[in-house]
């Protein structure tokens, strides 16, 4: 059944308290220089009369959005005005009216957004899980009664920086991913899997121990290599690094990466290759020129790093008592021969 504000007594906030709230909380929008900008937003939003959304309520929503965006960041009237211009104010007005429990706004939301919300849930979670995912979001949008006179709606967390439809999808995506990740962590190991896990652990520890016995400098090689690689990756442009992460960590296809980054597939491929080569060159340069390693040492370090090893390289290095910090210190005198 479509939700309705069950009882008008729930919505008890008076106009006076809202105005007081605005006055006391208008940390960002209290300036008279911004009054024109607020008025423009109000005109642009143009909420229908039947939504019963007052200008004061809308201004409070703007203040919240601004406060959320700037938080501790420096701001002035100009930057705030620029920010206000980017907002999806019509959606913000709708969210505010729905949060306040207005029937007409809810009806509008249900008509315009709800069917698509359920379709998005199906696309995200599949037919079996979609109703639960969408229903729970819908319930939170409506707001669960926390006390006799206050209701907290998920709409309060929409700040207009994106379209409402995209924001709803984003909330769905977050919830779905969190649920998946939670299920992954909680999934009990089957007995066979547990045994295999323990065997791997034992083998790995033995392997590490044996390798260290063969070459006591192994850990140091690995640590220096890891430090050089970390420094190189940190120096990359964030987009280049993100492209690598999508490809190597998330196993995304070139087409998917292209969509996520707004690039053509061929561009993704080309840039990935360019970044890989750049990483290789810089790591090589760091090891040879800064650490004065020879070609043979570089190759050896790569071999050590790329042995079959089920755990994170850093963890294995730490487990053999070689700290990254110590290894990263320039120490040409004690470098491996």
């Amino acid at each position: 059944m479509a939700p309705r504000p069950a009882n008008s007594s729930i919505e008890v906030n008076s106009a006076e308290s809202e105005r007081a709230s605005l006055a006391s909380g208008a940390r960002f929008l209290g300036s008279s220089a911004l009054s024109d900008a607020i008025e423009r937003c109000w005109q642009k939003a143009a909420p229908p009369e039947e939504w019963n959304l007052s200008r004061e309520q809308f201004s409070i929503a703007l203040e919240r959005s601004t406060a959320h965006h700037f938080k501790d960041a420096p701001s002035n009237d100009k930057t705030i005005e620029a920010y206000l211009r980017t907002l999806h104010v019509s959606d913000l007005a709708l969210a505010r009216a729905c949060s306040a429990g207005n029937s007409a706004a809810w009806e509008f939301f249900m008509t315009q957004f709800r069917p698509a919300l359920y379709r998005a849930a199906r696309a995200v979670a599949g037919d079996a899980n979609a109703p639960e995912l969408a229903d729970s979001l819908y319930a939170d949008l409506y707001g669960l009664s926390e006390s006799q006179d206050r209701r907290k709606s998920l709409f309060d967390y929409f700040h207009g920086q994106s379209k409402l439809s995209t924001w709803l999808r984003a909330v769905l995506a977050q919830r779905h991913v969190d649920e998946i990740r939670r299920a992954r962590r909680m999934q009990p190991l089957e007995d066979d899997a547990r045994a295999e896990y323990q065997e791997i652990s034992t083998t790995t520890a033995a392997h590490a121990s044996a390798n260290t016995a063969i070459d006591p400098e192994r850990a140091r090689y690995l640590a220096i290599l890891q430090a050089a690689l970390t420094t190189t990756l940190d120096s990359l442009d964030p987009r280049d690094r993100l492209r690598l992460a999508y490809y190597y960590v998330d196993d995304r296809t070139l087409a998917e990466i292209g969509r996520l980054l707004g690039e053509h597939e061929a561009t993704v491929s080309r840039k990935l290759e360019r970044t890989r080569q750049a990483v290789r060159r810089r790591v090589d340069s760091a090891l040879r020129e800064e650490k004065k390693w020879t070609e043979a040492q570089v190759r050896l370090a790569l071999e050590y790093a790329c042995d079959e090893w089920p755990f994170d390289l850093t963890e294995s290095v730490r487990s053999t008592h070689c700290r990254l910090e110590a290894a990263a210190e320039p120490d040409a005198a004690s470098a491996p021969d």
Partner: protein
Amino acid sequence: MASQDQEKRAANLLRQSLRDSGDDCPGPDILAAYFERSLDVEESAQYERHLVRCTRCREQLIVLDRAATPNVAGGAPLHRPSFGPWRWDWRWLAPVAAALLVAAVWMALRPTPKRAEKPPPLVAMSQPEQAPAAPMAPESGRENRSAPGRVPAAESSPNLTSDLSPPGKPSPRATPLPSHKQAETDSLVGGNASASSAPTSENGAVRAVGGRLEQGATASDAEIISREPATMETKSQTASTAPRVSVPGANVALEAVHRRSTKEIISTPDPKVLWRIAEGGFVERTQDGGVSWQAQLSVAGAQPAAGSAPSETVCWLAGRNSMIALTTNAKDWKRIPPPVPADFVAIKALDVSTATVTTADGRKFTTSDGGIDWRPVP
């Protein structure tokens, strides 16, 4: 270092190095804004620095992309074209707005080309009893809410009569603009618009799931929960009655498009009572000579082409895809079975029972019993 083995080793190294840092994840507002490319350059770069180290956020972005992208057979999602410039700077809209204005003026001077439309379900809106609004505001301060940087005209053009979901409650003062709302709906389903049905009750749609909000909340949301109490509206509040004025600049062109989107005015014997056919399958009625309009009917996916109102409360409509509709009380509409499947381009009604329709190919049919029976007119 060119061998396959070395490539594999290098890939493994990269994989291990691009590890999660465990930083606090931004909320869905940032995720959504980033996805829409509506963060500025600095914000995007900052978010990408987080994304690089956060598998959780990357997974969310991937799922968000999946929700937005229609799948082709085999499950491989379509490639989504890139959106263009990163920075959504409103100043870039100036030449676009100028071009839009020119296009809008040109479009106003020529008839709207017809478009093929799907057979429409008839969705009658119940018109709430409401007094006409106070002073008339110029039509629409409602902007097209496409993402900044995109050409807004495409979503407001009268040519864009795509499948529409049933409208909500438009303001009696502002021109309803379903196309931008449809754009919202379209984007939610990755552009795969379809005529959604009228609101139906859904069993179990709302369940007390208790604690879901906190479960799904991020750290930043938790902060908001504690410091920003929700404020509620009181029913006794009166809505603002300040007249709405058009926003100059980029909205001027949009206004022109909105005004021009009205296709036909249907007169009645009373000069103050008019119907009008608006773009997007909307039919509206005024009782004050056009000061205010109330939406009467939305024919999702179809466009009425003509109407005839023999009285203030009786109005016939006819349009594409065999559409014929009739109201006898000025608010409730019923679909009339057509004489033949056809696109109707004209209708002339004498009263509630008698009307003659004309098809696109020139045939005429008339009824004298309110559409129960039709006979061709020689």
